[in-house]
């Protein structure tokens, strides 16, 4: 792409300038080419090679997708092998050869460690030697001439290694840090350390040998100190000097020039890099009173602080240059930092700093400095040679990687451009804040984002070449017609200074007449001249003109009009973005516009058809998740309703990986970019089966481009909405590109798009590639065997009209019949226990708590089935126990009477309106609605075989609850026992006199007899009682869903009644709870229920009311006319016990 090669570092356009480069993608390691032209960044996605001399050109991407973060990357420092880069991939070290094509760049993989490698170091003398260290505690030295195994290994066994460094002078010496200690090794000495340096209080993060004094080494640690050692000194267990800082130190290294060092915090420390002089001359005088410091300890005294990153610095490097073959030391340096805030910054050094670290410039050198060829490895290499003999050169190892793919340069160029900021002034701080255009690159990125319909085919900032295509209203014949234009712009290097207007060239086009063309060119040149004469950037205006919009030639206007995109970022309007535009904006497919020149970008367009049309149309923000293609939903009856798409797996492979995190979308303030690692997690596996999925609906369109279009073609006449899907979908695709870099600038982009919606119109045709119809299938599978509950059991279980032990025995048989052994046994045991219970007399109750007693058994059984989630058994157990209550009541006359009465009471008609006058109005009206709807439902009963009776039974089912409410009301009275008395007395006058009095006086007060008479209390733990009610209610629901409404009514009739009765006797609190529970259910139902008068029973005799009746106008309780006469002759309160004085309230003849 780049035409002129700058092969001299002194022609570098960036050296000595501050530069900020935004590179998203979670890069964790950086290294620099010895010629100081390229830097390499490494992440889980692979390597980025960035040409610092042409930061506007997109990076070269060597893909190597791994789930492991790259711990270190090192560029070979040797002139002999300037193309070698080594990076870590968990326990392996990978040697990349950058002269090969990116798909084939892995030259060696060093596999000797058993756990993750933490550091790599090239031997400074021997080009083929390097050392690695690892969490597995080992340090290996490798000779790349025989890369199969390390030629030297050592380990201190105890703790994992964090760093390894070669001595700069003596190529046999290396140092490694393990935990708090540093070990010095000599290759000739085997694995006995030459020296062990102890003294740090916490683990050592970084070590570095001194370049000139070979036995000196510095170490930086988590304990916040930097220590300087001399391992040759007699007392090597003590450091020469300690410098104390306020932060744990991540990296600390000697300067490559002068006598200084730099340290960098792990956390805190203002995210800065600190530069110090080694021989801090003022130190002693500053701290005379500090006795400890006077010897060898001091505080950190930076001579310069490189401050400007918004998150911690990951690493720093020195970029240097010097003249060829010079005998004087004319090296110049520049600091390169890479931070977690995803920016790479270049910091020029002021001359004074060189002096401060005692760097004598232009000193006579004893030997020449090594010469490096000043070339970049940023360009993709097309190696026809290597691809032929792949077979033996390819590493046989099965990396989880997609590095075999061609075409690495699919990093979105516009996004890349928008991340580059450069400044001439030595004022980095201002640079990073001011939202002003500084150069052509920034201008192009700004307009690229502002004009989504303009396709940039080629952007080369360094050579000033821009090639773009767009549709403009330039047709002679029809002014409304948009014609396709291809425009080449040549921007002079001194643009936008006066007299350096860009040159425009419009490509020949059938639809464009010569006259029109020259008119346009004149106008463009005019615009260019006016703006550049004023020193302003003009491309935006030119594009406005080309798109047929009005361009102000008055510069005042245009200055007021913000050109810059950052402003837009603050005003993202999500509402605006998420609503679908219904304009007819459609797209132009640009296959036709791509001709076969050899530039990289059109190449990549061709090979990645889904990545074409960069910014060709508008974009919408939409967080709709990607639709599910299959699903499973339980049906009430225990069947599983599944649906699948039978779409082939292969169709999904195309899908892009795009992880849009919450933070991404939420960054509105774009000036401080979020440092989040976008590719964290373990998403990328690379294999076919576990390819990553898009998350957002629009993405699936881009992924399944062909498919979605196909459906457009096959199914759609009104294609408006679909087209707009398609178009913004494609945009997303373009922006997202492939797996790489989702820039945090996406919100910026969207802000701009939102603004420019509808500003440009173009015509288009959409083509469907194929007409494949998605197949799908719906299955209903029976999984009822998975459930503890069984409908057949539900059908056959005996619920009522038997003694409890008989019920249990019958149910045991039922369970056995269907093969439920466990349940059958449970019933059997219960049956036996119940039988024993029945036969035994007074003395038996005391044994109920015994592990062999019934109470214990019931409790344990409930516990067990609770765990099993067997609602059927839980409910049935409760039901049988409840029956026991009823049957136990049998022998005692009083209870018998009450029981028979109660069992008849079931279908009491009861109106909640009067019962619960406090009910809020909404509930009442809700009930009305329900009523009318159930009415309409009845009309549709033809479709559902048992609709009518189920509705009916639902109504019925609510009755027992009302009864509970009823009984509970009576408890408002002072004494429970007295109340029962009176109820019985009133309702069964025949028995009243002789029996009730007897019991209430003598027996009820007797604890033992009470227990005996209320066996349920013993069988059921009071705690379980209310649970039982819940279980029964649940099971009733289930029975209803199974289509067994009669069973349901039976169950509720028997159990709820008995238990509530028991509860009422047992505890007010619980009863209270139940009342309200049931209240809600009751309210919802009553209206529709009240409609059907036939259900009503007389409140006095509990028989069904037919014919003439008495209804209280206040409490709505009903009586047979005959009963009413009888009742009102004796009492003056409503027989239901509601407390209403009916005759006083209303005329009794109603």
């Amino acid at each position, binding site marked *: 792409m780049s035409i002129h090669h700058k092969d001299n570092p002194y022609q570098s356009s960036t050296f000595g300038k501050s530069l900020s480069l935004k590179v998203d993608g979670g890069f964790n390691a950086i290294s620099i080419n010895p010629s100081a032209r390229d830097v390499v960044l490494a992440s889980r996605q692979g390597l980025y090679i960035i040409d610092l001399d042409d930061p506007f050109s997109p990076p070269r991407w060597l893909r190597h997708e791994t789930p492991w973060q790259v711990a270190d990357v090192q560029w070979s420092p040797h002139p002999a092998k300037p193309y070698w880069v080594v990076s870590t991939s968990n326990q392996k070290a990978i040697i990349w050869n950058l002269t090969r094509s990116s798909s084939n760049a892995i030259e060696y993989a060093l596999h000797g460690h058993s756990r993750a490698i933490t550091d790599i170091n090239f031997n400074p003398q021997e080009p083929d030697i390097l050392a690695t260290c690892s969490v597995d505690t080992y340090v290996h030295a490798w000779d790349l001439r025989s890369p199969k195994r390390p030629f030297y290994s050592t380990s201190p066994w105890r703790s994992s290694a964090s760093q390894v460094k070669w001595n700069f002078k003596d190529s046999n010496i290396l140092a490694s840090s393990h935990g708090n200690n540093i070990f010095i090794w000599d290759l000739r000495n085997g694995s006995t350390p030459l020296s062990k340096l102890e003294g740090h209080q916490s683990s050592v993060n970084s070590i570095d040998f001194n370049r000139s004094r070979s036995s000196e080494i510095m170490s930086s640690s988590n304990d916040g100190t930097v220590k300087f050692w001399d391992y040759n000194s007699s007392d090597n267990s003590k450091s020469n000097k300690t410098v104390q800082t306020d932060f744990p130190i991540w990296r600390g290294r000697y300067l490559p020039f002068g006598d200084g060092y730099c340290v960098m915090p792990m956390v805190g420390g203002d995210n800065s890099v600190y530069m110090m002089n080694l021989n801090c001359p003022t130190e002693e005088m500053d701290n005379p009173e500090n006795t400890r410091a006077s010897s060898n300890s001091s505080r950190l005294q930076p001579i310069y602080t490189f401050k400007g990153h918004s998150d911690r610095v990951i690493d720093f490097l020195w970029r240097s240059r010097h003249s060829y073959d010079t005998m004087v030391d004319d090296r110049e340096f520049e600091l390169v930092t890479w931070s977690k805030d995803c920016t790479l910054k270049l910091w020029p050094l002021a001359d004074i700093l060189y002096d401060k670290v005692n760097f004598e410039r232009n000193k006579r050198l004893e030997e020449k400095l090594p010469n490096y060829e000043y070339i970049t490895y940023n360009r993709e290499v097309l190696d026809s040679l290597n691809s032929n003999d792949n077979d033996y050169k390819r590493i046989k190892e099965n990396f989880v990687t997609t590095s075999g793919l061609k075409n690495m340069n699919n990093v979105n160029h516009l996004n890349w451009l928008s991340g580059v900021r450069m400044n001439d002034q030595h004022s980095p701080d201002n640079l990073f804040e001011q939202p002003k255009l500084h150069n052509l690159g920034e201008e192009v990125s700004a307009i690229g984002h502002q004009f989504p319909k303009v396709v940039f085919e080629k952007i080369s900032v360094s050579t000033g070449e821009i090639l773009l295509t767009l549709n403009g209203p330039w047709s002679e014949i029809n002014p409304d017609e948009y014609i396709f234009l291809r425009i080449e712009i040549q921007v002079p290097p001194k643009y936008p200074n006066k007299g350096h207007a860009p040159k425009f060239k419009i490509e020949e086009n059938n639809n464009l007449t010569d006259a029109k063309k020259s008119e346009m060119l004149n106008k463009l040149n005019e615009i260019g001249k006016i703006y550049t004469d004023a020193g302003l950037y003009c491309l935006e205006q030119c594009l406005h003109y080309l798109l047929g919009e009005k361009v102000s030639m008055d510069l005042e206007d245009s200055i007021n009009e913000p050109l810059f995109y950052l402003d837009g970022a603050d005003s993202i309007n999500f509402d605006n973005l998420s609503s679908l535009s219904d304009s007819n904006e459609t797209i132009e497919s640009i296959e036709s516009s791509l001709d076969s020149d050899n530039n990289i970008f059109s190449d990549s367009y061709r090979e990645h058809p889904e990545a074409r049309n960069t910014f060709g149309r508008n974009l919408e923000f*939409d967080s*709709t*998740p990607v*639709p*599910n*293609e*299959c*699903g*499973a*939903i339980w*049906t*009430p009856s*225990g069947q599983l*309703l*599944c*649906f*699948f*798409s039978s779409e082939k797996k292969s169709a999904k492979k195309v899908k892009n990986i795009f992880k849009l995190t*919450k933070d991404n979308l939420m960054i509105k303030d774009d000036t401080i970019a979020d440092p989040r690692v976008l590719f964290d997690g373990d998403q990328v596996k690379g294999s076919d*089966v*576990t390819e990553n999925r898009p*998350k957002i609906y629009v993405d699936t369109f881009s992924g399944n481009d062909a498919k979605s279009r196909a459906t457009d073609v096959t199914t759609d006449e009104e294609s408006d*909405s679909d087209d707009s899907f398609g178009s913004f979908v494609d945009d997303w695709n373009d922006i997202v590109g492939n797996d790489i870099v989702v820039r945090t600038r996406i919100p910026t982009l969207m802000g701009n798009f939102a603004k420019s919606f509808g500003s440009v119109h173009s015509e288009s045709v959409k083509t469907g590639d194929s007409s494949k*119809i*998605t*197949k*799908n*299938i*719906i*299955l*209903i*599978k029976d*999984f009822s065997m*998975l459930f503890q509950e069984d409908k057949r059991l539900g059908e056959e279980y005996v619920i009522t009209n038997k003694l409890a032990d008989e019920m249990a025995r019958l149910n045991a048989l039922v369970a056995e019949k269907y093969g439920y052994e466990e349940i059958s046994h449970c019933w059997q045991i219960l049956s036996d226990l119940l039988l024993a219970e029945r036969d035994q007399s007074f003395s038996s109750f005391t044994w109920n708590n015994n592990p062999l007693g019934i109470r214990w058994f019931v409790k344990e059984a409930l516990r067990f089935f609770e765990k099993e989630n067997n*609602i059927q058994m839980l409910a049935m157990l409760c039901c049988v126990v409840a029956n026991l209550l009823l049957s136990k009541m049998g022998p005692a006359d009083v209870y018998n009477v009450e029981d028979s009465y109660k069992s008849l009471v079931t279908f009491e008609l009861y109106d909640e309106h009067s019962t619960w006058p406090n009910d809020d109005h909404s509930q009442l*009206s809700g009930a009305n*609605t*329900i009523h009318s*709807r*159930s009415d309409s*439902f009845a*009309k*549709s009963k033809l*479709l*559902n*075989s*048992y*609709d009518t009776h189920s*509705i009916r039974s639902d109504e019925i089912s609510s009755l027992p609850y009302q009864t509970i409410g009823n009984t509970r009301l009576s408890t408002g009275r002072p004494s429970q026992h007295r109340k029962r008395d009176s109820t019985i007395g009133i309702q069964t006058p025949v028995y009243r006199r002789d029996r009730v009095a007897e019991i209430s006086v003598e027996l009820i007060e007797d604890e033992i007899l009470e227990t005996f008479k209320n066996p349920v209390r013993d069988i059921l733990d009071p705690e379980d009682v209310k*649970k039982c009610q*819940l279980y029964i209610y*649940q099971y009733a*629901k289930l029975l209803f869903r199974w289509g067994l409404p009669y069973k349901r009514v039976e169950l509720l009739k028997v159990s709820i009644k008995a238990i509530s009765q028991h509860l009422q006797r047992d505890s*007010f*609190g*619980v009863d*209270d709870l139940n009342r309200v*529970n049931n209240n*809600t259910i009751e309210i*919802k139902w009553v209206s529709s229920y009240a409609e059907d008068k036939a259900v009503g029973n007389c409140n006095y005799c509990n028989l069904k009311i037919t014919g003439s009746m008495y209804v209280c106008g206040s409490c709505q309780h009903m009586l047979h006319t005959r009963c009413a006469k009888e009742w009102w002759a004796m009492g003056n309160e409503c027989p239901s016990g509601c407390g209403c004085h009916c005759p006083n309230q209303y005329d009794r003849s109603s």
Partner: protein
Amino acid sequence: MVSITNAHNDLIHDAVLDYYGKRLATCSSDKTIKIYEVDGENHRLIDTLVGHEGPVWRVDWAHPKFGSILASCSYDGKVIVWKEENGKWSQIATHAVHSASVNSVQWAPHEYGVMLLAASSDGKVSIIEFKEGRTSTPIVIDAHTIGVNSACWAPVCYEDVESDSSKPTKELRRFVTGGADNLVKIWKYDNDTQLYALEDTLNGHSDWVRDVAWSPSVLLRSYIASVSQDKTCVIWSQENNKGPWKKTEVQQEKFPDVLWRASWSLSGNILALSGGDNKVTLWKENLTGNWEPAGEVQQ
């Protein structure tokens, strides 16, 4: 086993049987809803409901006591309520308060009346109550930034105020939402203010939550299943409707692909999970409180 092939021209996103298991409603990317009559092994297409302008994500049958009513939600941002009268389906209500795709719709337990819960990618959930043929103003809640992917009602239950029996027990009306902020949130209805307030926020996923499902069976504890793009499924359980939610992962390792949908059986708490691998897995809690596989369905 009933099997219906190629019911729709595009992907199917939901299929629900009505209360009695007689009728099946399916919805699809082809913007239509189809109603089938299912009888034993046989099925018959009754009607195709056309009205949405985008893919239809979910459908839900109302309780039959309200009539033969179906709600559907779509990418077009609308919820449409359909009603069948005399064998003819018609739209009886359109609910369009959302500005982005409505991803889930569910009828409230019938005890609460005719009430719909809808969740949308515009970050909001809405509750619409239909009273006497008219619609009350919907309650709209900002639930999750970026987008709400699913919302589900809790079954009817009651606050336990055993300690103080003088106070009336309150109905505990709650629902759960899951969103693109990786969170699961529990919302509770306040009878006094008549509004829904955030009760709890559950943080357990590292990626978008795709579906939440509240177990319909009210036994000892409440269960919520949440499935996520992070390929995990978390079961949240709460004892006696109060106290903290306990997090249990269905399985320690991740699922092979993203999970899309969770569904609880009406009884027995068997969980059906479906996801990107076009597979359905069934899960069941064992006696020790862990979840173990109970079956698998593949196409």
